[in-house]
């Protein structure tokens, strides 16, 4: 029994947000037809690429920092059991309580029980990918507890009955005038004269959430980093909603993936330089909070840390794919991805969109549950260059494609093609046949499925008189 329990397993089905309702190509098709979405995404990703590029260029040692970040994460993964136990010991010594959650269901149960024990009917939340991943809000609501998202973008998503579409900026698919409309429609007590000026919109969120911050006694957060040798947790944010949640309530519950660990306090010097420049394109984000357990008289007096597996150990078991656990959730890969820029995040069907999502989601769920995601990339490599911890996303995509279930017809065609290519005489016959088949692909005719997607918008070149091989033989 213990051997069975102790083997890595994927994130369970039926809970959380790691699996989409439709395949990537089908979801992308809908998104591609939304001109407002296309425009918003193009504007936002272009803006952030420019900002990030400028502040990265200010650092003469950006590449050295990337190498250090990459090595630190690899080292963390290799020493994960001892580092996690060290973290638990330090957090406990500092007055915190550490819980271990093997999957989403267990994490949701732990958090729900902890909130219930406080008697509070409401929790305030700082944006956290881990709690979105496990569907914590739904679990809390089912238990009669109201979760209030306090991050501006999450608020826009929650008020708009929408889904997040970006790791860092969940409402990236909305522009200022759409945000104004959502606020006017769904924000209680909003000034009807609200304009779409961004500072005015931010001010409206400030007024709306102030009372909730002041009166809620329980907060739920994620964590950007947990430092094993000190037990310190860090949350990196911009608006101050994080500080509110981490400071005002009596009880703080932090849900964190087991891969968020950093070995030593000193190692933060690397990640605090990499993360803001790669994510929001700032030299430093406005606020970073760090706390170690409980500080008497300052901040929450009850602190719970929930360490979450939910498929992470299955990712760790793949020697190539485990690099995906190095991710620090900066979203730089989304912002440079030509696919993401055109489809947006919803097409990926998971809380982790973009290139990192295309390698992380299928590994967390098992590739058969997200079989189209490893193909949601042209392998252009822009994500690898942008990643602050040098995750080789294109190589992992190729690796996962090799594990993905293949359509039977495609597999037969691929096998036949490989056989032909391995037999030069067959190959030469095929070249001659290709000349004939190309005629079918010329304008107006179209190729047969599944190749018709190509010929729908592109011509094939006119067939050459002779192949290179023929020319070489005859010259």
């Amino acid at each position, binding site marked *: 029994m213990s051997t069975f329990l102790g083997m890595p397993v994927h994130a369970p089905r039926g809970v959380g947000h790691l699996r989409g309702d439709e395949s990537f190509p089908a979801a992308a098709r809908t998104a591609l037809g939304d001109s407002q979405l296309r425009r918003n995404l193009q504007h*936002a990703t272009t803006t952030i690429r420019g900002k990030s590029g400028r502040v990265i260029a200010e650092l003469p040692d950006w590449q*050295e920092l990337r190498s250090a970040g990459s090595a630190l994460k*690899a080292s963390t993964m*290799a020493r994960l059991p001892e580092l996690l136990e060290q973290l638990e010991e330090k957090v406990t010594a500092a007055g915190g309580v550490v819980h271990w959650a093997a999957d989403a269901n267990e994490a949701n149960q732990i958090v729900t029980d902890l909130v219930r024990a406080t008697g509070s009917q409401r929790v305030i939340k700082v944006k956290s990918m881990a709690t979105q991943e496990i569907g914590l809000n739904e679990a809390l609501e089912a238990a009669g507890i109201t979760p209030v998202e306090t991050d501006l973008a999450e608020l*826009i998503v929650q008020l708009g009955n929408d889904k997040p579409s970006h790791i860092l900026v969940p*409402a990236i698919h909305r522009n200022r005038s759409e945000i104004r409309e959502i606020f006017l429609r769904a924000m209680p007590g909003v000034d009807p004269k609200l304009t779409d000026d961004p500072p005015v919109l931010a001010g409206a969120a400030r007024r709306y959430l102030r009372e909730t911050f002041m009166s809620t006694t329980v907060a739920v957060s994620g964590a950007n980093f947990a430092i094993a040798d000190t037990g310190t947790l860090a949350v990196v944010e911009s*608006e101050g909603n994080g500080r509110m949640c981490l400071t005002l309530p009596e009880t703080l519950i932090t849900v964190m993936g087991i891969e968020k660990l950093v070995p030593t306090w000193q190692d933060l010097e690397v990640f605090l330089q990499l993360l803001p420049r790669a994510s929001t394109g*700032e030299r430093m984000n406005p606020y970073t909070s760090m706390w*170690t357990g409980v500080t008497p008289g300052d901040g929450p007096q009850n602190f719970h840390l929930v360490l979450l597996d939910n498929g992470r150990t299955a990712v*760790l078991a793949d020697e190539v794919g485990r690099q995906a656990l190095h991710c620090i959730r900066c979203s730089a890969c989304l912002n440079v991805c030509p696919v993401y820029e055109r489809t947006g995040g919803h097409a990926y069907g998971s809380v982790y969109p973009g290139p990192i999502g295309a390698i992380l989601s299928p590994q967390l769920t098992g590739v058969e549950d997200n079989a189209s995601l490893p193909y949601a990339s042209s392998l252009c490599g822009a994500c690898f260059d942008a990643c602050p911890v040098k995750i080789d996303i294109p190589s992992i995509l190729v690796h996962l494609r090799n594990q993905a279930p293949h359509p039977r017809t495609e597999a037969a065609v691929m096998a036949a093609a490989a056989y032909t290519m391995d037999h030069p005489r067959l190959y030469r016959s095929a070249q001659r046949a290709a000349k004939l088949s190309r005629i079918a692909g010329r304008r107006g005719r179209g190729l047969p499925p599944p190749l018709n997607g190509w010929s729908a918008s592109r011509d094939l070149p006119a067939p050459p008189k002779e192949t290179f091989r023929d020319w070489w033989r005859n010259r």
Partner: protein
Amino acid sequence: MSSKNIILDRIRAALASGAESPEIPRDYRRGPAEVDLDLLVERLVDYKAVVHRLNPEKSGIEPVIGGGVEGSGPQAGVADARPLDGVEAEGAAGGGSGGERAASAGAAAVRAAIADILGAGTVVVPPGLPLEWLPDGVVGLVDDGLSAERIAAADGVVTAAAVAVVETGTIVLDASPDQGRRIISLLPDLHICVLRADQVVASVPEAVARLDPTRPLTWISGPSATSDIELNRVEGVHGPRNLHVILTG
């Protein structure tokens, strides 16, 4: 079998085929580097903090680039401190190393700067903050466990700082007695932070080295802001919308 043991067993099974723990290349910039206070001011201003530089070598007067906190939105810039009557220029260095005269002169300069920022009103102050920093007309509400409502109702908060980073324009508070509980620098809409030149380091690694991780730390780079609307930085969400930094020495 506890979930802890299940997870640890899973990890060990996942790593059973081997995982390298590489050497960490630390060839990025780490050592102490020269502190460029002008650059610090530039970086603070770039992220919309208002800086009041009490510079003894320039008779306590710096050109006004911006400043002022009235109105709806935060404004940025470098504001000058008021000329110090009867105070010798070098006396304003402060920093705790110049003796009583210097300290009180430093206090006078800080007082003048705060008077510039906030003519009158109530500010929350941590218990370890020198009350002599507060000008006439500004009432100090010492935090001895004040309620959130009282803190939020104040016109501002005055704190000292632990460390500042030139390269990123960041100030770090570590909840020492002159900085206080985290809540006091969060709820008021105006945060006045008094920073000594000797607390400034060039880079993030130097700041990390100086800080004590067992204390609650708050890294602040400019006023509360968001990038959630079209990925442009917009100042003024939940934290203080006005950040004034008084740089002494």
